[in-house]
């Protein structure tokens, strides 16, 4: 129970000072984590490819590995500190904000009491002086009254005050009740927040386990439950345009921004239009927490159920038991998600190795097929950006392959871009078809996913309007890009279509970019374009209608980039012409591309 005196006399700035202290520590921890991840740890990495021109950049050997492990753990300590102290900062800001509102009400009541000649005593009771019309030659006596919050008690007291001949009695009762109310509100705030702050204690040792991150996730949810008065979850824009998201973000104070990231990282991290650094910080917290939660769930799964097979009877024969299937599916989902999560974390660890730039996690969620948007280099400050949309079978679990392609493209592009900064982005922002035979012919995946790509690109418009942008699709990813251009305005300067089975439109002029800025690559031995034509080819009435056209056709009107690789998947091979051509487009050097003759 908070007392009247405490509420009256407390200096709320002390809570705000505490908030500032935790915020500062959180920022310091974040900077330390970044320093470790982006520069220091890379030095202790063993050479990736012996004989590489870049080799010799790191330490090798078992000693380096041991040092690497210690430093990696240290980085986790800093990340944990960053997130938990962020939550503490948010909590204290919430406490201060809520108590200020109550104090304001109290101060108003106290001012009114004073001007009415009443005295508020230290225990919150209110005394009133003799006042009123004389009765039998005497002024009605003064007295004092306590306040009540219980409605019945209030009613009784009000009645008594009304009946008293001293007119000040009623006013005093009113004041006392208002004071009691304020005290009750403050007590409620105190009771609500105290266990949360208790819960945000630091752990005792340097080991950061899956359980620790799962606990952080739990802490975050616990604080979310009580923080709504300070920062409303509903205020976070949902389903709005990137422009609206950006505007909302800019309307927040620095403290509010920090606290929104601490409290609601999943929501903030997915907002197109917010700065890359903000999304990255939020999504990294989500990644760490989900990893912890999933590892814990995996470790605590029951043993494989028995029997695995049951007689399904009749023609079904032996089938998996339901129990086994559920167990198996859950296990597989957890393992697959963890594989993708680890790939992303490996990418973080590899920053600095062979010049690989900082990674920015612009999107992440592990549910279902998963979402992952990872940028090499900061897209908000880059001069040239490439956004890559993968195709069939793309999912979080195998994100490594797609990231490798963008790493290769980044290296090739940065090597020819001179002083310009390049950022390449792997955009797994949609549910890709998973089966080449059954799913890939369907247009629904592209049509449903296209708006997300448009939103993402428009988000880049908000944070970096002046860059040169290339959108690259591979296989079914090109179909999505075509659908995006068809459904809305594709915000890009150049489009590269790689191994495209068709883009739903029949002409490059429908791709929303200037003529000559649509590029196509179709390597020898890549069978996807021809097979795909029948599902995703576009039509062009100029040719007499009904013909299905794919970007590899001359009629489509794309510029055909030459390739020296074979098959559907080798376009990003290091040192290849295929890769070089993409890099040339990405860096705005269209005169250096080599076209198919």
């Amino acid at each position, binding site marked *: 129970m908070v007392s009247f005196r405490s509420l009256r006399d407390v200096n709320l700035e002390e809570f705000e000072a505490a908030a500032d202290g935790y915020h500062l520590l959180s920022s310091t921890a974040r900077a330390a984590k970044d320093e470790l991840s982006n520069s220091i740890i890379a030095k202790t990495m063993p050479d990736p490819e012996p004989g590489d021109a870049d080799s010799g950049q790191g330490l090798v050997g078992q000693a380096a590995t041991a040092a690497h492990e210690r430093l990696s753990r240290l980085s986790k300590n800093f990340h944990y500190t960053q997130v938990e102290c962020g939550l503490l900062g948010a909590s204290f800001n919430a406490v201060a904000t809520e108590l200020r509102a109550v104090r304001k009400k109290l101060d108003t009541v106290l001012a009114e009491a004073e001007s009415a000649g009443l005295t508020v005593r230290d225990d919150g009771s209110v005394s009133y002086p003799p006042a009123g019309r004389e009765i039998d030659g005497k002024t009605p006596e003064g007295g004092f009254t306590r306040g009540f919050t219980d409605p019945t008690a209030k009613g009784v007291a009000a009645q008594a005050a009304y009946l008293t001949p001293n007119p000040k009695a009623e006013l005093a009762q009113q004041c006392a009740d208002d004071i009691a109310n304020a005290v009750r509100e403050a007590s409620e705030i105190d009771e609500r927040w105290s266990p949360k702050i*208790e819960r945000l204690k630091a752990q005792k040792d340097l080991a950061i386990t899956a359980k620790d991150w799962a606990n952080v996730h739990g802490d975050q949810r616990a604080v979310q439950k009580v923080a709504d008065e300070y920062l409303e979850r509903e205020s976070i824009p949902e389903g709005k345009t990137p422009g609206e998201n950006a505007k909302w973000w800019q309307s927040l104070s620095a403290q509010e921004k920090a606290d929104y990231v601490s409290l609601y990282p999943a929501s903030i991290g997915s907002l197109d239009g917010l700065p890359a650094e903000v999304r990255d910080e939020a999504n990294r917290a989500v990644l760490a927490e989900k990893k912890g939660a999933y590892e814990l769930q995996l470790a605590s799964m029951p043993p494989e159920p028995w029997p695995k097979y049951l007689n399904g009877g009749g023609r079904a024969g032996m089938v998996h038991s339901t129990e086994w299937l559920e167990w198996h599916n859950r296990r597989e989902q957890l393992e697959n998600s963890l594989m993708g999560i680890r790939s992303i974390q490996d990418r973080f660890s590899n920053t600095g190795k062979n010049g690989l730039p900082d990674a920015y996690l612009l999107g992440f969620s592990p549910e279902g097929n998963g979402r992952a948007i990872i940028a090499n280099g900061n897209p908000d400050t880059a001069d040239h950006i490439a956004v890559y949309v993968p195709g069939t079978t793309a999912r979080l679990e195998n994100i490594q392959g797609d990231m490798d392609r963008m790493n290769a493209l980044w290296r090739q592009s940065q090597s020819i871009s001179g002083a310009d900064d390049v950022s390449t982005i792997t955009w797994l922002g949609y549910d890709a078809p998973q089966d080449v035979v059954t799913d890939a012919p369907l247009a629904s995946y592209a049509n449903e996913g296209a708006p997300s790509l448009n939103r993402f690109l428009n988000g880049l418009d908000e944070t970096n309007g002046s860059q040169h942008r290339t959108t690259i699709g591979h296989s079914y990813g090109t179909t999505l890009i075509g659908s995006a251009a068809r459904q809305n305005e594709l915000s890009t300067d150049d489009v590269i279509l790689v191994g495209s089975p068709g883009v739903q439109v029949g002409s490059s002029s429908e791709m929303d970019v200037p003529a000559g800025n649509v590029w196509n690559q179709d390597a020898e031995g890549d069978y996807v374009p021809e097979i795909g034509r029948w599902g995703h080819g576009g039509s062009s009435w100029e040719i007499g209608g009904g013909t299905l056209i794919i970007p590899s056709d001359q009629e489509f009107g794309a510029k055909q980039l030459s390739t020296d690789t074979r098959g559907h998947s080798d376009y990003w091979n290091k040192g290849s012409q295929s890769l070089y051509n993409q890099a040339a487009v990405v860096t705005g050097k269209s005169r250096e591309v080599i076209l198919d003759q």
Partner: protein
Amino acid sequence: MRSDQSLWRTTAQEVGALSRNVRQGLSELSTAQRGLGADSIPVTGFSIGAAQRSTYTSWKRYVGLVSRECEELTGKLENAGNGHYANEQDTRRAFVTQQSASAQHGN
């Protein structure tokens, strides 16, 4: 190509800088707690304040632990850079051993 020794030393310098930043962060946290002493109204009058004191203590302790870990690693990285350890195995052993008090089992 940079030599191994100079890489160890550079890493040592960078981790050393981290160590200083961490101590700075801890000192700022401490300063921010000035108005939250045992006799202060936020602590005596609010359970939030009381809870805060034990939470703060736990962070002071934890960040102290992290700071000591930074220092221990700085020292070992320097040693590796100065040829202090006789061989690869000794260097490795140094990094696998945990000296900072109250940390568990080197992991």
